[in-house]
Structure formats: C-alpha cells, structure tokens
C-alpha cells in the first residue's frame, strides 16, 4: 500500500507574524482516492493547500512526492510535478478566450505560437467532460455568464494532466446541479488513478464523494484515515470542535422579553445571496447569526446597513422604515457596522486612534466656524470612549497600525460609541483577535448591550455565537433554518444544522 502514497507531508509548520497557522500537520494522499480535509475556519486548511500548491514554503517539515523528498519553490514547480489547485478566490483572465484561459501557463505552442486549433479542440474536450459542451471555447471569458465562468475555472484545473487535484470548496461557488456534475468528473478522475484532495464544509458532500477524511484543528492533524462514509457525524463534529481554550463569556442579564423591538427586518431578500430573512433586535439584546461562510450571513448585515441594495423586504429601525441601499439613512437612524475586513473597510491604519474614533461623528466636533474641527474636543471625546473600552495603549495619538487586533476592534467599537448609535452590527468581531483578548471584546459587547444598545452579531465560530448572544438564528444557504434562545442550543446541534440542515 505504501507505494501508492503519492504525496506525504510530515510535521509541516508554517508561521505568520503572530499566528502559527500550521503546527505540525501530517497528510498522506493516495493515488486514486478522494481525500477530504475537514476543519473549522482557521483550522489551517487554506494554508495547508497553499503549501501543497507551492504558494507558501513551509518553515519546517518535509514533503515527499512519489517517495522523493521535494521542495516547491513556486507555484509552477508544484504544477510541473503534477499538482493542480482550484482556488476559491482566483479569477480567470477576462480578456482571454476560454481555451486560452484553460491552457494559460502550459500552452500548446510551438516556437511561441499557440496551436489554436489543437488547443481549442482539447478545451472543447475538457468542457464536454464537465458536461458543458455548449460553452464556446473561443469566447472571451469576460463575456461569459457568472455560472459559465465557474465551470471554466473548474475546467482549468482539469485541463492539466494532473496527478493530484486540490479543490478548495468547489461546491461553494457552484450551483446545485453543477455539484452532481463535479462529482461525476471526480469519480472519472479517480478511476484514472488521479488523487483528489477535497475541502468542504458540507458533510453530506464528503460522505458522497470522499474516501477518507483528515480532520484539522488549530493547525494540527487531529485524525486521519477516517472512512468518509462510515464515520458518524457525531464523531467528526466533536473532533472538529473539541476546544482546548475555553472562552469566558459574560453572563446574560435576565430579560423581560417585553421590550419593543429596535430593529425589525421583514422578509429581507437579496437575489442570489439570501431569501426572506426576518428578525428583530430589542434594545439591550444580542442576536447572533450562525452559519458557514457563504451562507449569506455577512450579506444580511450589509443589506440591513444599506451597503447592499435589498431586492425585497423591509427594514424598520425604531419605528421608521429605512430606504433600500442607503448607508447614510441607516447611520442616521442609529446603526453602526463593524465589518469583517476591519483593516480595509473600517480603519485608517496610518492614522492615530483619535482620528479613527472621531470619523463617524465629525459634525459634532466642529467649532463656531462650520467645517473647522475642534481638535481638543475631538481628542477629549476619543479619550473618553477609548478609555471606556479599555483600548491599550491609552495614548490616542498612537497609530492604529501598531495596535493588536483586539485593540483595533475596540477602536472600531469606540467610533460607534461616540455617535448616537443604538444598534451595532458586528461581522466576525473576533477575527484576527488573539485568544486572550477575545474575552475582553465579549465583555465590551455585553456591556454595550447592557447600556441599552441592540447588537446583531455574525460569527463563523459557533461557540462565540452561543456564548455571547441571547438569541441565535442559524443560516444555511441563504435561509434562516432555525431560531432559538442561545440557551436551548449547543455546538453540536448548531453544526448539525449548518452542515446538514437537519431540523428537529
């Protein structure tokens, strides 16, 4: 059996500033089998794939390919060995034809001239294999529909005669019937002796297509060689969730439940992202939305906030209906958003804390002359707000870039404290915040709620939603599948819901 091991990874460690993304991963991939990687967000799956594809060099650890130790210095060296990777986020080249995209980097060319006809035929063949012979191979990719582009990016990996194909959540971007198609292709490939590493959050897919499962957690291999079809869901879920660090969540105050809703969302829809989401948030209440990446959670927040224009539905804030697609109206009504991409969407990294805090309430910082800022008042108010949230260091003239993730998040929260914010929308508030600082963020959020603020929270980390929120909505594929008080749910139950959609 040992001869069939195509790829063997031993003790792979990869560190980034502040994070140990991989902490000694072992992985064996056998030819002719579908190997599934399972793990929660942040378990290290993406980093592992990048090491495999040659995009990251591991700090320590060994990689052997067909029994021979190798080092991939660049993506092309991995490609030449026969490893093809379908990344989730990599786009096609819009200005090139379908065929040119499929063979980019390994063109069928003689003396630099592309053999158009041969390449076109080969591309046609690949698309036919994928069940889409109708996609014109000579058309520019930029002029294909979004669905067709997804097929083409899949075809791109198949166009190489790869020995090992890595698929990073391919089903997340595919329509439902395309997934069945993909599985048929995977089975064909495996029958030809190709190895597939398949990453997915969806357990039902793994059961359907996988041969064996490796579970990653906190950058380590927790279990490997588990039979994909035979391992009980319970066992997989508890492997994924078994948590070494217990977070401290603030205690919930007893709620009377009679408070009038602050935010009312009725049948909110955004075409292609989510459908008829209804929810309400009362003053002092923390409502959490749990679900997988791509389930539409962030989009719900952004649509409520007006950053995306809703297709239908109504958003009412404090009794007033909000117009679609107007962030300005939402902020005026008292909403504040702390987005997931804190560094690019919320903070001016090169500016001092004080500027970042005062940003949303500058009109209140003006002196007698309109437009003239009262810097002293700006500083004093910022000092007060950051002091209340215990931002460290306490010096508000420090550049935000130099702060830790947790303190950066507090700066974003402080910004909304200054204004007349009555509802906070938090998207992954502890992303990039180290474990120790999380409890502090949790405490701050709870304290804000206790002061009467409503909070709508989105997080991929199920324990976070369960521990912090009063009420939890579970989303799956753009729909709310379950709503319950946090106390009535546990992590297993939520994971069952988000992964398999089992209700009851």
């Amino acid at each position, binding site marked *: 059996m040992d001869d069939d091991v195509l790829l063997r990874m031993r003790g792979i460690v990869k560190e980034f500033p502040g994070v140990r993304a991989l902490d000694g991963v072992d992985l064996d991939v056998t030819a002719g089998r579908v190997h599934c990687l399972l793990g929660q967000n942040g378990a290290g799956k993406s980093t592992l794939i990048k090491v495999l594809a040659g995009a990251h060099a591991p700090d320590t650890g060994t990689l052997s390919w067909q029994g021979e130790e190798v080092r991939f210095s660049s993506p092309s060296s991995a490609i030449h060995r026969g490893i093809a990777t379908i990344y989730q986020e*990599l786009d096609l080249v819009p200005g090139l034809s379908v065929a040119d995209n499929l063979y*980019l980097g390994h063109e069928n060319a003689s003396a630099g001239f*592309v053999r158009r006809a041969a390449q076109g035929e080969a591309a046609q063949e690949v698309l036919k294999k994928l069940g889409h012979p109708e996609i014109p191979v000579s058309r520019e990719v930029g*002029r294909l529909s979004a669905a067709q582009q997804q097929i083409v990016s899949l075809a791109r990996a198949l166009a190489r005669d790869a020995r090992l194909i890595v698929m990073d959540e391919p089903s997340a971007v595919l329509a439902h019937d395309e997934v069945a198609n993909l599985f048929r292709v995977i089975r064909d490939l495996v029958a030809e002796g190709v190895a597939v590493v398949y990453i997915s959050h969806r357990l039902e897919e793994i059961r359907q297509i996988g041969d064996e499962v490796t579970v990653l957690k906190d950058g380590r291999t927790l279990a490997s060689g588990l039979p994909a079809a035979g391992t009980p869901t319970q066992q997989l879920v508890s492997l994924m969730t078994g948590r070494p660090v217990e977070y401290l969540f603030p205690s919930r105050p007893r709620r009377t439940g009679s408070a009038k809703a602050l935010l009312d969302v009725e049948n909110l829809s955004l075409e292609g992202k989510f459908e008829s989401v209804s929810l309400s948030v009362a003053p002092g209440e923390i409502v959490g939305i749990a679900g997988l990446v791509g389930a539409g959670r962030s989009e719900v927040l952004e649509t409520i906030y007006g*950053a995306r224009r809703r297709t239908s539905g109504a958003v009412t804030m404090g009794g007033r209906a909000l117009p679609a697609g107007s962030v300005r109206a939402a902020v005026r009504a008292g909403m504040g958003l702390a987005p997931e991409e804190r560094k690019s969407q919320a903070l001016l990294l090169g500016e001092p804390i004080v500027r970042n805090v005062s940003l949303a309430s500058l009109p209140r910082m003006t002196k007698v002359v309109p437009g003239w800022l009262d810097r002293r008042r700006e500083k004093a108010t910022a000092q007060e707000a950051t002091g209340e949230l215990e931002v460290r260091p306490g010096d508000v003239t420090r550049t935000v870039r130099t702060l830790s993730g947790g303190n950066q998040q507090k700066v974003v929260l402080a910004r909304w404290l200054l204004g007349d914010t009555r509802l906070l929308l938090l998207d992954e508030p502890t992303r990039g915040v180290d474990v120790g600082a999380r409890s502090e963020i949790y405490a701050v959020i709870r304290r804000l709620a206790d002061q009467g603020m409503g909070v709508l929270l989105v997080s991929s980390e199920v324990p976070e939603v369960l521990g912090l929120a009063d009420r939890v909505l579970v989303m799956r594929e753009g729909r709310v599948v379950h709503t319950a008080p946090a106390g009535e749910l546990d992590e297993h139950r939520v994971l069952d819901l988000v992964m398999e959609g089992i209700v009851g």
Partner: protein
Amino acid sequence: MTESLVAGSPNPLSHRLFARPEIGATAAAGVILVFFLAAAPAFRSGGSFFTVLYQSSTIGIVAIGVGLLMIGGEFDLSAGVIVTTAGLANSMFCWWFGIDLWVGALLSLAFCLFIGFVNGYLVMRTGIPSFLITLGTFFVLQGANLGLTKVVTGSVTSPDISRMDGYPLLEGVFASNFDAGGVTVWGTVLWWLGFTALAAWVLQRTRTGNWVFAIGGSADSARAVGVPVVRTKIGLFMTVSFLGWFVGMHTLYRFNTLQAGNGVGNEFLYIIAAVVGGTLLTGGYGNAIGVGIGAFIFGTTSLGIVYAGWDPNWFKAFLGVMLLLAVLVNLYVKSLATSTRLLRDSPGKADDA
C-alpha cells in the same frame, strides 16, 4: 442558475461588435476624419492623407509598446524622453569617438534596452508602482539629455551627423521616403503598420500574447498557473524602450541633429493613443489595432486643425476632450459587453460598482 447558463449563450452580433476594444476608436476616427474633410478643403488630397499617416506613425510606433505595456498592467512615463535619449546617444557617441554610426546605433539600442530592463526590474523587484519608477526614469533621462549634451557639444543641440560614416544607409533604414503616384510616403508609415500587425499577431496568436493579457488582468492568478510574470513584464518594458529607440533613430536620421529637450510630454500622447484605442488603463484589455487607430486620431486631429486654418494652440484642448470621450465610450462599451452577466448577478451589490 441553469437558465442563466442558457441566457448567457446567445450573444447578438451587435453586442459582439460593440465588445471589441477598438470599435469606439474606429467610430471616432471616422467622425473626425469626415469632420475635417468637410471643414478643411486642403485636407482633401492624397498628399495630406499621407502626411496625416506620417504624423500618426511618429506617435503610433511607441504607442504600440505603451499599449502592450498597459494591457500588461503597467505604465511607462519615460517613453517620451527615451526617444530623444536614443538619438542623442547615437549621435554624440559617434561624434565623440569618431566611430561608424552603425556602431553607435547598436550601442544606443543596447542602452535603451538596458533602461527598459531597469524600469521593469525595479518595478518587479520593489513592488513600487510603475508610475513612480518611470516618473523617476523620466526625470533622470530628461536631465541627463540636457546635461550631457551641454557637456559634449557646449549647447543643447546635438552635432550634425549627416557627413559621418554610415549615414546614408541608416538614413535609408530609418528615415527614407518614396514617391507613390505623386504623394510622398514616409518609410515610418510602413514600419508603423508592420509593427502594429506584428503586435496584433503576437497578442492574438502567441503564448506571450496570452501572458500579456493574463499578467495585466489578474497577475496573481497568472502566477499561480505558472506564467512567468516577472519575465513578461520586464520584456514589455524593454519593448517600449526598443520602439522608443526606433523612433529616436528616425528623428535623428531625418533631421540630422536633435534638440536635447525634445520628447517631453510625448509619453502622454502615447498613453492617450492607447486609451483612445480601447486599452484599459487598469490592464488586461485592449489590442494593437485599437492603439493604431488611436494614433491615427492623433495624426488626423493635429494636422486637421492646421489644414482648417485654426489656431493650433487649441490642439491639446481637443486631445483632452477626445481622451475623456474615449474613456466614457470605453466604459459604456465595457458595461454593454458584460451587461447580461451583471444583470443576473445580485443587482444590489454596491461593492461591485
């Protein structure tokens, strides 16, 4: 999702036509040509048409390189002065050392390619935007052109080369003209058409052409699938400096002497020709024929104004308007080309706008 696949497939001819990068430029060129034919009687002759083509070629040759580079996602602001640098290097080197002009021309070529290489190498190595790197090169060359010429000749004019060894042959290559049925045709026009055809061919038919589109459209993806991004980009910078050298040779052998301060400002004309011709400023889109038409619009306008008897000082204002119109047309064409897709994607996606 399935019906969207079907809906995307039939693409009416009008859409396909309007999605060509050069279609806006071709229409504009037609309108401008007709306009000046109507407004300026002197414009209506074979002779003036070929003068227009000549004028277009002096901008168009370098613009091809600049256009390719822009498709590849980079800028070169030093493309204007390198033309003068090439000519000065050739003439002064030969004059100083008394060697054959052929040797000087080749040394000048090597020097220009080296500058192109340095531009590309610095951009790739440091990650500093090419706009800044080549802005630096631009000023260095501009100053060096003037300073060195002053040192060598004592003035800002290069020595006359018409009586030096090798002159007749080089003049024949770079600055000849011939008579075709009563009108003067400059050789550069043929070179221009040739280079345009070559660039169009490379872009459409060769592996390198695919790489150029890929590195401009999505450099990370290109790298991930094994495209030699660094090599291709440096090659594009060197292409620009090669074409700059070529036009520099033409200018030198046509006028025999050069003003050391010339060429400044032309880098923008190249960029305008490329953008008017449908090249996307952000890379990944465009073609060589479009750039050629952009240069033709430049030639028509600059001479049309003269033939119409207007104050030529207005020329730049006209060019500016052309540029803005071209950008608007490109934007419209691009949205038309992708409209079917955008409509189907979530319509309210504010972050995609």
